[in-house]
């Protein structure tokens, strides 16, 4: 039998909290983290609010989470990387694992060569002010951008390590350096599917013995000018005024009137550990990873491609990719759809995606879908893209450990085929919880978590 994997630590970072305890309390209380954006002036953006990660009223900073000698390095971290560094540090602590973070001479829980790191990441947007301050030095006499001047002198106005701030693998890179992870490390970039695909990869790597424990999950920051402009263009975000006092009411997954989510930032990084090794060191396990699966969808893509017909049908009735990925995860877990007690779905709040997602869930679960609680997180934490699936898995693991469902915020009337309307947090018997997300480019990933004995 192949080795099994458990989640022994959670680093959840989102607009409702930094750390899993704060996050869980907020989710159970039905708090939403969506509010006015402080990072830059969004007053004229069509979606003017978002879900930022704050601490003490300020944007959370990695400076408070890295060893002293590493503080300087936070200057070359994009926001995505800062959030990953925070989440990783929280995850290790939560798992009671000592890593190189404690010092070069610290006695680490696991040998460095057996510590892996898989952090899904998005397309990191260049900081607009930083890049533009250099770009404006390359204007020609007519005020247009001149490649000639850029090559001559403009380039020199960027900081030397500029590129290294924006490579997606920098999230994992900084985490591996801080924590001394010398095992396999990867950066999966499949938008919303990245986090769960990363968890799947950690599981496979632990199964084959290449690592004993992995930092695993996904993080992204979409509360940035380019990210927001880009995703607004492709129809992912709802129109939302800067002074709307209850912005979460506009995010209504599976409701006919839904028009989008709001940008979020953060995600989750977990410590996924080989079960016997975890047991041996007396670690607490939130949940066991029972099954993983992924598939390609031809339907997830929003039809912005001029020749959308090459993608199958965006907004079709059933996203077969989701059906396949869930099927693969259930098979991997050796269980049937009847055994799933709760689902953390994509809950995009985008009409075409919601429709094909519900279609897919109905195909898998039949009429019983209306009785399976959906844990829909977008009204509370916004859309975290590469962070979303991993955050969903973190919440699912905590829910299993607590045998409790978080509250559900919903200001509308969702599709009757689903159990996704507003609800208080309640105790629940949760043996198996399914987490599943589909990306804007059609990759689907599913993970089944289960209770540990």
């Amino acid at each position, binding site marked *: 039998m*192949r080795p099994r994997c458990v989640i022994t630590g959670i680093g959840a970072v989102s607009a409702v909290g930094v750390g899993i305890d704060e996050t869980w309390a907020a989710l159970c209380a039905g708090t939403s983290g969506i509010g006015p954006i402080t990072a*830059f*002036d*969004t007053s*004229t*953006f069509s979606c003017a609010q978002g879900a930022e990660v704050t601490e003490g009223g300020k944007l959370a900073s990695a400076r408070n989470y890295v060893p002293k000698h590493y503080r300087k390095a936070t200057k070359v971290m994009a926001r995505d990387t800062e959030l990953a560094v925070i989440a990783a540090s929280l995850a290790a602590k939560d798992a009671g694992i000592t890593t190189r973070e404690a010092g070069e001479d610290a006695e680490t829980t696991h040998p460095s*060569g057996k510590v892996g*790191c898989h952090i899904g990441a998005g*397309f990191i947007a260049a900081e607009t002010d930083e890049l*533009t*301050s250099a770009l*404006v030095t390359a*204007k020609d006499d007519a*005020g247009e*951008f001149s*490649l*000639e001047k850029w*090559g001559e002198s403009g*380039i020199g106005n960027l900081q*030397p*390590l*500029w*590129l*290294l701030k924006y*490579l*997606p*693998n920098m999230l*994992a*890179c900084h985490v591996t*350096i801080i*924590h001394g992870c*010398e095992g*396999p*490390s*990867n*950066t*999966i*970039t499949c938008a919303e599917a990245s986090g769960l695909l990363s968890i799947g*990869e950690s599981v*496979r790597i632990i*199964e*084959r013995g*290449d690592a004993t424990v992995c930092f695993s999950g996904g993080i992204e920051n979409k509360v940035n000018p380019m990210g927001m402009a*880009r995703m607004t*263009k*492709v129809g992912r975000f709802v129109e939302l005024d800067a002074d709307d006092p209850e912005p979460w009411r506009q995010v209504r997954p599976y409701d006919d009137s839904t028009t989008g989510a709001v940008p979020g930032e953060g995600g989750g990084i977990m410590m996924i550990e080989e079960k016997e090794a975890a047991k041996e060191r007396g670690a607490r396990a939130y949940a066991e990873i029972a099954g993983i699966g*992924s*598939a*390609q969808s*031809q339907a997830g893509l929003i039809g*912005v*491609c*001029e020749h959308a*017909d*090459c993608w*199958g049908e965006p907004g079709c009735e059933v996203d077969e990719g989701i059906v*396949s990925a869930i099927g*693969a995860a259930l098979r991997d877990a050796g269980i049937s759809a009847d055994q799933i007690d709760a689902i953390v779905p994509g809950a995009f709040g985008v009409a075409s995606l919601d429709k094909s997602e519900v279609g897919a869930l109905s195909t898998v679960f039949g009429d019983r879908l209306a009785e399976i609680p959906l844990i829909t997180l977008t009204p509370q934490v916004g859309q975290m893209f590469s962070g979303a699936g991993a955050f969903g898995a973190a919440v699912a693991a905590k829910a299993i450990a607590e045998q409790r469902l978080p509250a559900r915020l919903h200001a509308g009337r969702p599709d009757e085929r689903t159990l996704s309307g507003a609800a208080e947090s309640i105790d629940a018997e949760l043996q198996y919880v399914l987490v599943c997300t589909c990306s804007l*480019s059609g*990759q689907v990933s599913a993970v089944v978590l289960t209770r540990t004995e």
Partner: protein
Amino acid sequence: MSDTRVVITGAGWITPLGDDLDKVWQRMLRGESNIRPVEHFDASTFATNFASQVSDFKLSDHLGDRAEPHECGSLATKYALAAAVKAWTSAGFGPAQAQAGGPRSSDHVDPNRFGVYLGSGEGRMDLGNFIRSNYAGWNDETRLIDFQKWEAAASEFLVASRELEQEPAMCIAHVAAELGCRGPVSNCMTACAASTQAVGEAYELIKRGDADVMLAGGSHSMIHPLGMTGFIRLTAMSTRNDEPATACRPFDSTRDGFVMGEGAGMVILESLEHAKKRGANIIAEVAGFGSSADAYRITDIHPEGAGAAAAMRRALEQAGIDPSQTDANGRPLVHWVNAHGTGTKENDKTETAGVKKVFGDAAPSVPFSSVKSMLGHLIQAAGAVELITCLQAIKTGVIPPTANLKNPDPDCDLDHVPNEPRDCTDAGGVDVCLSNSFGFGGQNNTICVRRFAG
């Protein structure tokens, strides 16, 4: 854990030296390159103004009528599609059966058991409209962006499809749609290590039983103004603007950086059982995969090549090869190590140190050359393209040279196969190769491939 064997049954590439497997190979054996001043944009004033570019590429030359739905894709996506279709066809999955618009499909593979794992890079930024928006928002006095003005410009200028096509998972979306894949998918970005990692993890997916067939590889083009800018600022590229053709000099004491390249490499991986059942032509067997992280510094490689050595060791261990051993004729068991060999001061030295660590006393007799001297560095596509050179070496029994190696660096004192290819047919051919790829940021990956021996 698993005794599933995995073989390679198809390969395709788009490289600066061409797109035909054997013709490109012949050019490499002659030490040729296609490294010239940049043609994609005016780079004449850039500190590095040359690159290793793909010439005369048209997607329709490779996809015919099926190209049109993909013309909205980025250059990296188009290279990927062309290489993927070559690999697909060479694996015997047949020509397109469906009409333009629908996915390709094959009687030989169940779409639910067919996956894609790529290490493809991001698409090209829509620089013109990006800069227009930024200029419109810039306030010269505060030296900050006025985001009200910026937003007005951005929402006017930015084009939805061009923005979407930059997303790093769009390449795999196009490829998966074209080939009708419905099985496991993933795309990774570990910089220069990405496509080796993609092939390695695809191999592991098949071993785990998650798929019968995987298309794996990578695609990338950073030959655009901001791509070149980033590496110029890192002083990682050669600045030998007056002699581009011989600028890339791995292991040479005069080396001054890598040469930016572009392209795509794709292979079809298949469980041996599946390949046999359909009577596929088996090119080679994947014998092992090793992956590690330096966990050292964001800018520097571990000085003793510890991470590189760990990746090579793991790949060899999985392949059941003891690197210190030789065969009855005293020949090392690894016949060629395809070096990451970028031509930067640091990489070549530390990689050499890593090889010495792994092979010990046998190291000086292990051929260890870098085809980047001719192809340039295809960044995320490099690993897969170079893996295909290993397949060609196994097929022909010849090891490609490190070109431009005139003044050996005393710190790189292994057998770098300088300037001339080495014909190993008399020694029994080339049976086992290692292919190394190491990424900026410390991700190291090594694949071991071996001649399929039944």
